[in-house]
C-alpha cells in the first residue's frame, strides 16, 4: 500500500479567465472569407461566441493540471457500490482506436461497413449467450436508457394485447435505484413501491396484493442493491406472469452472477446490461456508457430498429422492417465506441474467463464484508454477493460522526469512498463494491483505513467531521451551490 504524502496541486482559473485576445490553439487550412451573401442577415450571428483564446500548450496544461485533481481507478481503490469501478483494460482503448473500426459514416452502404455490423452482431450474440435472452438491442446509451427501452417494450407488448389502458402499475422494491421509478414515470407507468422483507429479500407476500389486471410489470434489481440474490424471484416471476405482468430486471449488478445465472432462464422477460460496469468500459467521469437490453423470445418483435441480422451468404445487414418495433431509442446504433470496448473485454476473457471474473468479484466483496463487519454495523445479515451495505446508525449515535464524514475522511487516504446514502432503506448507507480487480493488499489497506477512521471518531471526531484535509480543496458547500446557482462563467464587467 502506498503511503500518503502531500505534493503540489495547481489550482486553475477557469479556462475563460486564462484566455488572452489574439492567441490561438488550432491548426486549420488557411482562413477564407466566408461566402455569406446568399444568407439572410437574420440567420447570421452578430457576435462571436465567447470562447477561450489560448495556444495549444496553455490548453494542454490547463486540462492536464485539472486532471490531477481527480481520483480515478488508475490511482487507487474506487469501491463505489452499484457502480462496479473495475479496472478498464488498456487493450480496449487501443483496439477502439483502430481507424478501420470507427472512421465510418452511417450513410455508407452496408457492404462497406460489414466489419462494424459483424462486431455488433457478435456482441449481441455474446450477450445473449451470457444472459439467456433470445435477442439484445445495443442501442440504449446507458442503464437508465435501457430501463426506458425495456419498459417501452413491455408497454408495447401490453398494448398489442389490448391492455394498455389498464395495465399501468409497475412494482418497484424500496431498495431500487432512483432511475427505476424515474423510468417508470417516463414510460407513462405508475410506480408502486414494494417494501423489502426483513432479511433484505423481496417477498412474494408483498407482491401478492398487486397481482391484478392493473399490473404491468415488476422491476427487480438482482442481486438487489444490498448485494443480496433475490431468491424469490423465480416464484415472483411466475406469479407476475400469471397475473399478466412482465418482469424487468435491472442488470446493474449482473457482474455478480455473470456466468452463474442466466436471467433469461429464470423468468426475467427483459433486462439491461451496463457495459460500463460489468464489461469494463471506462466510466468517463460520468459516461458515455451503454445499456443494451435483452428480451425473451416473446418480446423480440418490439425491439428497437434496426437490428443486425446475418443472411444466408454470411452477409450482415440492418433489419429495419420490423412493424411491431417500439422504434428507435438512439439516432444511430448506440454508443458504438463503447460497444467495441465491451466486445474486446468479452473476447479477451471468453465465457470461462468471465465466470471467473464473477467469482473473484464476489470473493473480494465477501472478504471485505467479512473484515469490515467486524468494525461496522451491517444491518442485513443475509449473504451477499458482489457488494455489501453498512450503516452509520451506531457510530452516529455514539460519536455524531456520519457516513458522509467517514466518506470525506477516506479521501484523505487516497481512496475513494463507497456509495453513500443509497440504498435508501439503510440509514446512512455505506455501500461497498470492491470489484474483482482489487488486490488483497488493496482490500486490507482499505479496511485498515476505515478502522483508523473509526478510531478517530473516538479520539478526534472533529478531524473526521471536518474532513477532507489533504485534497487541495476542503469540504465543499453544496447548499451554497444550490442557493447561489452559479452555473456558468460570465465575463466580469
Amino acid at each position, binding site marked *: 500500500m502506498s503511503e500518503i504524502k502531500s505534493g503540489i496541486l495547481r489550482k486553475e482559473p477557469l479556462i475563460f479567465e486564462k484566455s488572452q485576445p489574439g492567441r490561438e490553439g488550432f491548426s486549420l487550412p488557411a482562413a477564407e472569407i466566408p461566402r455569406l451573401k446568399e444568407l439572410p442577415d437574420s440567420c447570421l450571428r452578430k457576435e462571436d461566441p465567447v470562447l477561450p483564446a489560448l495556444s495549444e500548450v496553455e490548453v494542454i496544461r490547463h486540462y492536464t493540471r485539472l486532471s490531477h485533481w481527480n481520483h480515478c481507478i488508475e490511482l487507487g481503490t474506487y469501491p463505489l457500490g452499484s457502480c462496479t469501478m473495475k479496472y478498464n483494460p488498456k487493450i480496449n482503448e487501443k483496439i477502439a482506436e483502430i481507424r478501420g473500426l470507427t472512421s465510418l459514416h452511417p450513410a455508407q452502404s452496408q457492404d462497406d461497413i460489414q466489419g462494424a455490423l459483424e462486431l455488433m452482431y457478435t456482441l449481441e450474440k455474446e450477450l445473449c449467450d451470457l444472459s439467456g435472452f433470445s435477442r439484445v438491442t445495443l442501442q440504449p446509451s446507458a442503464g437508465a436508457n435501457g430501463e426506458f427501452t425495456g419498459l417501452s417494450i413491455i408497454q408495447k407488448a401490453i398494448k398489442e394485447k389490448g391492455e394498455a389502458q389498464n395495465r399501468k402499475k409497475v412494482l418497484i422494491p424500496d431498495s431500487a435505484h432512483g432511475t427505476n421509478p424515474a423510468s417508470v414515470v*417516463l414510460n407513462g407507468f405508475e410506480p408502486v413501491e414494494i417494501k423489502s422483507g426483513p432479511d433484505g429479500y423481496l417477498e412474494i407476500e408483498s407482491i401478492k396484493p398487486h397481482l391484478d389486471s392493473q399490473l404491468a410489470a415488476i422491476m427487480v434489481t438482482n442481486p438487489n442493491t444490498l448485494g443480496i440474490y433475490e431468491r424469490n424471484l423465480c416464484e415472483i416471476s411466475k406469479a407476475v406472469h400469471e397475473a399478466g405482468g412482465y418482469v424487468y430486471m435491472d442488470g446493474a449488478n449482473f457482474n455478480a452472477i455473470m456466468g452463474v445465472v442466466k436471467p433469461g432462464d429464470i423468468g426475467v422477460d427483459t433486462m439491461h446490461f451496463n457495459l460500463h460496469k460489468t464489461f469494463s468500459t471506462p466510466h468517463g467521469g*460520468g459516461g458515455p456508457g451503454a445499456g443494451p437490453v435483452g428480451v425473451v423470445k416473446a418480446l423480440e418483435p418490439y425491439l428497437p430498429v434496426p437490428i443486425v441480422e446475418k443472411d444466408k451468404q454470411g452477409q450482415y445487414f440492418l433489419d429495419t422492417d420490423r412493424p411491431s418495433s417500439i422504434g428507435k431509442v438512439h439516432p444511430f446504433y448506440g454508443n458504438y465506441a463503447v460497444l467495441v470496448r465491451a466486445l474486446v473485454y468479452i473476447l479477451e476473457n471468453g465465457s470461462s474467463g468471465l465466470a471467473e471474473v464473477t467469482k473473484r468479484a464476489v470473493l473480494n466483496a465477501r472478504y471485505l464484508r467479512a473484515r469490515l463487519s467486524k468494525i461496522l454495523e451491517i444491518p442485513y445479515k443475509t449473504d451477499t454477493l458482489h457488494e455489501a451495505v453498512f450503516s452509520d446508525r451506531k457510530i452516529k449515535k455514539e460519536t455524531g460522526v456520519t457516513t458522509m464524514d467517514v466518506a470525506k475522511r477516506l479521501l484523505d487516504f487516497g481512496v475513494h469512498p463507497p456509495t453513500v446514502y443509497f440504498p435508501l432503506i439503510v440509514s446512512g448507507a455505506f455501500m461497498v463494491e470492491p470489484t474483482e480487480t482489487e488486490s488483497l493488499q488493496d482490500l486490507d489497506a482499505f479496511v485498515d483505513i476505515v478502522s483508523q477512521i473509526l478510531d478517530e471518531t473516538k479520539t478526534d471526531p472533529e478531524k473526521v467531521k471536518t474532513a477532507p484535509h489533504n485534497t487541495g480543496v476542503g469540504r465543499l458547500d453544496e447548499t451554497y451551490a444550490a442557493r447561489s446557482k452559479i452555473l456558468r462563467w460570465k465575463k466580469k464587467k
Partner: protein
Amino acid sequence: MRYLPQSEFDIKKMLKEIRVGSIEELFSSIPKEEKISEVKLEEGRDELHLCRFFHNLAAKNKVKDIILAGGGVYPHNFPAAAASIVSRPEFATAYTPYQPEVSQGTLQAIFEFQTMVSELMQLEVANASMYDAGSALGEALLMAYRVKRGKRKKVLVSKAISPDYLQVVKTMLQSFGDIEIEYLPWDSKTGKTILPQSLDKNIAAVALGYPNYFGVIEDISRMTTLTSSKKALAITVSQDAAVFGMLEAPGNLGVDIAVAEGMSLAGTWGMGGPGVGLMATRKKYTKKMPGRIVGQTKDEDGNSGYVLTLATREQHIRREKATSNICTNQALVALAFTVHLSLLGSRGLTRINALMRNRALELYEELLAIKGIKPVFTGPFFNEFVLSFPGNTEKLRKFLADHGIVFGIYLKKYSDVDSVFDNTIVLSTTELIETQDIKKTIKLVKQFYQD
C-alpha cells in the same frame, strides 16, 4: 488472468477469513436450480489474437477519404491535442463526480462545458450533457410539458427534423403517453417547415430543426413570435453544434430550449456515436431541466470549487418525481467537445464555419453545372443541401463509394411523406473537405453520366 490479482495463496487466505471452504460456496445463496448447469466454456483470447481478430474486422470495413454526408454525423477534424487529454485515465476512469473534493478536474471541465454551450446558444443555463441530440429533443419536449405543468398536451414537431431524431422522439413520447405529437410538413418549394398561422392553447411547444435535415435554415423568429404569443415553448434542434460559429444563436432568436449534437466536434462521430446532446434553456426553466448540472461553490476556507447541484431535479433524489431518468450521461464526450472548443476559440470555430460554408457552395455550384442535376429547395442553407439527380441515384452513390467518396445521404428512405424524394441526395461538407476533393468528386460524377 491479467486483470485478476488474486493468487491461489490469496484466495485461500480470503476464503479462510470469510469462513467458507470454496469459492463456489460464496454462491450458495443462489437456488441451485437457477444456476447454469452446463457452462459453454469458450476460451479467452490473448492480446495478440485479440488484435488480430479486430484488425480482421476492421479490414472488412471500407474507410472513405472523402465524406460528403452529414445527416447528424459530420466528420470534423479532432485535434491530437484534444484526444490526448480525453485519454488521460484521470478523466476516463473516474465516474460521476459524487465526491467533489477529488473530482474537481471533471467538475471544472463540465462547468466550462456548460459555459460554452450557453455561449453558443446564448441561453443562460446549460446542463452537463444528454445522450444525444435525438433523445435531448425528446427530453426538451417533455420539459416543455412540465413547464406547462402537464396542462398542454400537444407539441408541434417539424417533419423536416432529422428522421433519426424523430424516431427517437416518437418512441419517447409514445411511451410517455400523455403528449400528442402533431407533425408540421415542409413546404416542397422552400424546404422550410410550414408553421401554422396561430397556435392552439393546448400546444406546449413547437420544435424546428435549425438548420433542418435538408440543411435549410428555418424561420426561427417566425416560430418564436408564434410561441411567445401563446406562451408555448420554442425548441430548436441542431445536428451539428459547430454551425453556431456563424449562425445566429437560438437564444438570440427567442428560442426557449436549444438542443444540439456535439459529437461531430468531439471526435466520436464514427458510426454515429457516442454522441453528446447539448441542452440550454432560459434561467427561469432551470428547475425543469433534465440532466446533471454543475455549480460553483466554496469550501470552509472560502476556496472556490465545483459540485453537482440542483440535484432535487434528479432521479437519485426525487425518484419518480425527477425531471428525467438520466443518470450516466456523456461526460467524456462533453470533455472532448470542451477541449476542442478551447483549442479552437471563436476564431477557430468561425474558420471552420467559413471552410464548411465555402466548400459546400463550391460543391453545390459545380454539381448544378452538370446537366440534369437540380436544386430541390429554394430555402437558404449553410453547409448542407439537397439536390436531385438524373438516372439511378443508388448507382451513382455506389460508383462514387468505390472511388472512396461517401456521396451524401439518399433521401429515398424518407420518402413516405413526399414524392419529391425520388433521386434526391442531401450533401454536406466540413473543413476536412478540400477543393481538390470536390474537383475529384465532380470529375467522377461527370464520368458517371458520360459512361
